């Protein structure tokens, strides 16, 4: 492959266009391609609602404690949203993430209560349980070739059943609310707890993986055009396998962190994550790198939804208002992006039609 450069040199002289056209001396400057100000609508909305809530509640909302609360509360559901990015980028749905979170949390708690109080081992057990589900997903989706939406919906139900079976009907608190909770979830730096830093770390790793590595490029290629990816020599199934495994592991991590932060296991904890996770992942595609599932967009979306939800409760909104807010923001952000695109398309079509109409009318005389 390295020889590619020498081959290009051979080509220089005889190729028709390159000897006639003078060497392009000045290329347009390398733009910051990743970040475009047009694609940061969520940031503007975030700024607007911060100002709005600050005016409505200057004493309670406009405080460091609010920022801490947003980060601490939404880092874990944000982590589930990040988990979805790899499968979604390769064109797969993973609906099992919420159940995987439940299973990993319950498995870790069960291990703490019944086997050993070692927090590191408990985390490992939780992650292994999550990865096993990832493998099952891979068998269903990649080997049996069942549509990912249906396949992971099915595994999701089964996994939740297993989690409930392990946890029994009681919540497990033995050894969970002690040193495990202290070490895994409650240590903090300036009021910002561990899960926030873990979420940030996962975000950075996923950002590099998606944006900078061959793996990420291949994932997007598969998601956009599986046929082109396949003809380009990409082994579609192995890339998707990695996506499903990483998704399960990250979702499992979120479940373990949630168990730790509330100090008890409950198989139902995961289910609350499902919709917000998809919401931030899809909202993220309208931000930063439009049309692609991307990490910065997802992080911005987590902050936007978190701030909105916390703010609404602080100013005394009813307890159903955050759900309304999430829905409205999702439709607004996606709608604005696609509506803008459609309007531009219509305009272009109208212009080209007018051009064509004029020219044909001019060149072909019509005889009645």
């Amino acid at each position, binding site marked *: *492959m*390295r*020889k*590619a450069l020498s*081959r*290009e040199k*051979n*080509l*220089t002289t*005889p*190729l*028709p*266009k*390159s000897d006639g*056209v003078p*060497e*392009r001396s000045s*290329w*347009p400057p*390398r*733009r910051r*391609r990743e970040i475009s100000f047009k694609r940061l609508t969520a940031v503007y909305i975030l700024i607007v609602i911060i100002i709005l809530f600050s005016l409505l509640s200057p004493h309670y909302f406009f405080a460091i404690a609010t920022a801490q609360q947003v980060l601490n509360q939404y880092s874990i559901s944000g982590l589930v949203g990040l988990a979805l990015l790899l499968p979604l980028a390769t064109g797969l749905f993973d609906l099992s993430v919420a159940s995987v979170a439940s299973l990993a949390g319950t498995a870790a708690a069960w291990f703490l209560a019944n086997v050993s109080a070692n927090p590191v081992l408990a985390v490992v057990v939780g992650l292994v349980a999550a990865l096993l589900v990832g493998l099952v997903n891979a068998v269903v989706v990649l080997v049996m070739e069942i549509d990912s939406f249906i396949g992971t919906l099915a595994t999701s139900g089964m996994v939740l059943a297993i989690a409930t079976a392990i946890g029994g009907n009681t919540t497990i608190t033995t050894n969970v609310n002690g040193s495990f909770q202290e070490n895994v979830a409650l240590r903090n730096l300036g009021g910002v707890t561990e899960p926030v830093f873990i979420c940030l770390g996962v975000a950075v790793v996923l950002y*590099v993986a998606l944006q*900078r*590595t*061959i*793996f990420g*490029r*291949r994932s*997007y*290629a598969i998601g*956009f*055009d599986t*046929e*082109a*990816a*396949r*003809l*380009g*020599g*990409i*082994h579609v199934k192995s890339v998707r396998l990695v996506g499903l495994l990483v998704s399960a592991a990250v979702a499992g991590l979120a479940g373990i962190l949630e168990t730790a932060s509330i100090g008890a296991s409950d198989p139902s904890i995961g289910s609350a994550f499902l919709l917000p996770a998809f919401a931030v992942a899809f909202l993220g595609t309208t931000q930063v790198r439009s*049309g*692609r599932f991307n990490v910065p967009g997802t992080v911005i979306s987590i902050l936007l939804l978190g701030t909105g939800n916390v703010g609404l409760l602080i100013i005394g909104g009813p307890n159903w208002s955050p759900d309304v807010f999430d829905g409205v923001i999702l439709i607004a952000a996606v709608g604005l992006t696609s509506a803008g695109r459609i309007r531009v398309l219509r305009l272009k079509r109208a212009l080209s039609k007018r051009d*064509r109409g004029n*020219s*044909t009318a001019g*060149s*072909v005389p*019509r*005889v009645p």
Partner: protein
Amino acid sequence: MPVGDRTVDVAGVLVADHISMSFNNLEVLHDVSLCFNPGAIHSLVGHNGSGKSTLIRILAGFHSPASGSVRIGGHLLPPGSTGAAAASGLRFVHQDLNLIPQFTALENFGIGAEYSRTRRRTIDWLEQRRRLLDALALLDETEIDLECPVSELRAVERTLVAIARAIASRIDGTVTKFLVLDEPTTALEEPETKHLFEVIRSLSRQGVGVLYVSHHLDEVLELSDEVSVLRDGYLIDTLPRSALNHAALVQRILGDEPGSVAGPAADGGRVARGTPEQALNGSSPAASALTISNLVSRRLRGVSFSIRPGECVCVAGLSGSGREELVYAITGAIPSVVDSVEVQGEAANALDPESSIAKRIALIPGNRQPGSIIDRFTIEENISLPGMSAIAGSAGLIKRGQETANCRTWIERLDIRPARPWQTCKELSGGNKQKVILAKWLSIEPTIMLIDEPMAGVDIGVVETIRSVLRQLADEGMAIMITTSELPEVMPIADRILVLRRGRLVREFDRATGWTESDITRAMMIT
């Protein structure tokens, strides 16, 4: 002009009267007047781009003609109305049949027409079934399983279901007067074609006018009462059955002077070519870059060939001849079976897309083919896709400076516009997309290139660029195979031309011994 200056409206006759049509200022139909009689089989023949499909689309009401009109039995059809065409008794069976594969024959039967209803306004399936069985009985076909998804039927059964639907569908209470069949035999084997012909003849005996469109001249000769020939948008001639023979048709399809279109001498001036000695420089003439024996896929029935380094081989064939599948079958991109493969003189296992790239074989679907280019990727992302490991460091991190530099080299080399590596490919013109596709595959440094439709959707200036790039690569020792439906565009750079017909290689033309376009076209069309 068969119809004369004034077309005559006899009862029941379908008349296309002085039809002209242009797309983007390019005239594709030029004052075409035709007259189709009820109960007659009238065939329409001509090259790709002769205007056949446009004429049919105008009859069907998909397009409104720039000038001229369509009349049936003296009644003017409102232009551009599919509903009006159907309501006057015109029925169409398009090449792809327009059946929904997961639906049964019975379910497909109602689509696009009126259903029989019960008193409760639900669909009367019993009545539907009776009507479909009647229609099939009319076609001498009683064995089709109506409850089976049509995807599981045989090809000829699907065609018959589509025809039954066309003739028996009630649209605004009218019955079928004219049936238009567009390349109905593409998917059929020899005996099935015979069966279909029996059906067509029996329909015409019952007074249905049949308009038959086909590339296959032997079929047309066997079936037709009349044949109209279109060339470059002009109606050349309409021949009655008594005047029909191969020679007359071929001569009209190709033009008045067969042999003058292209030949070795005529090509010489168009593209600067290396001499044969240069082309084979550094490799013995006998060595082969790629040898394939007995390749079988859905449409290919045992194809064997060999390409030498420095050679540009062009494969021609009508649609349905297997030409569309050849390069994909070679590289295992579609299901295929092969007896043996030799790459650069070494025996190899059957190829797949991954191992092809490792062996420096580039499979290049042309612009507009599925999988050719990722529209939502930028130019640089598309170019680096197949050879990504070359620009990646440890841990698979892409060296983006190098990626952009490579991309800029290709942008300059092939004059890709706009010259922005981060331009999304969706907005590029066809020609520039094609250049990106070429750059993408040249970047893996291939020794063998298999290209499908390199000239599709590309404007004339870019055609020239692509031709000279390909010719030059061949002269430098690359082995190139091009499959194309636009033979004249590729002929000037071909060293050999292979002709596929019905899944088999039937003729081989060599530049050294000379060829003419009409010879090749004849080989494509006639047994």
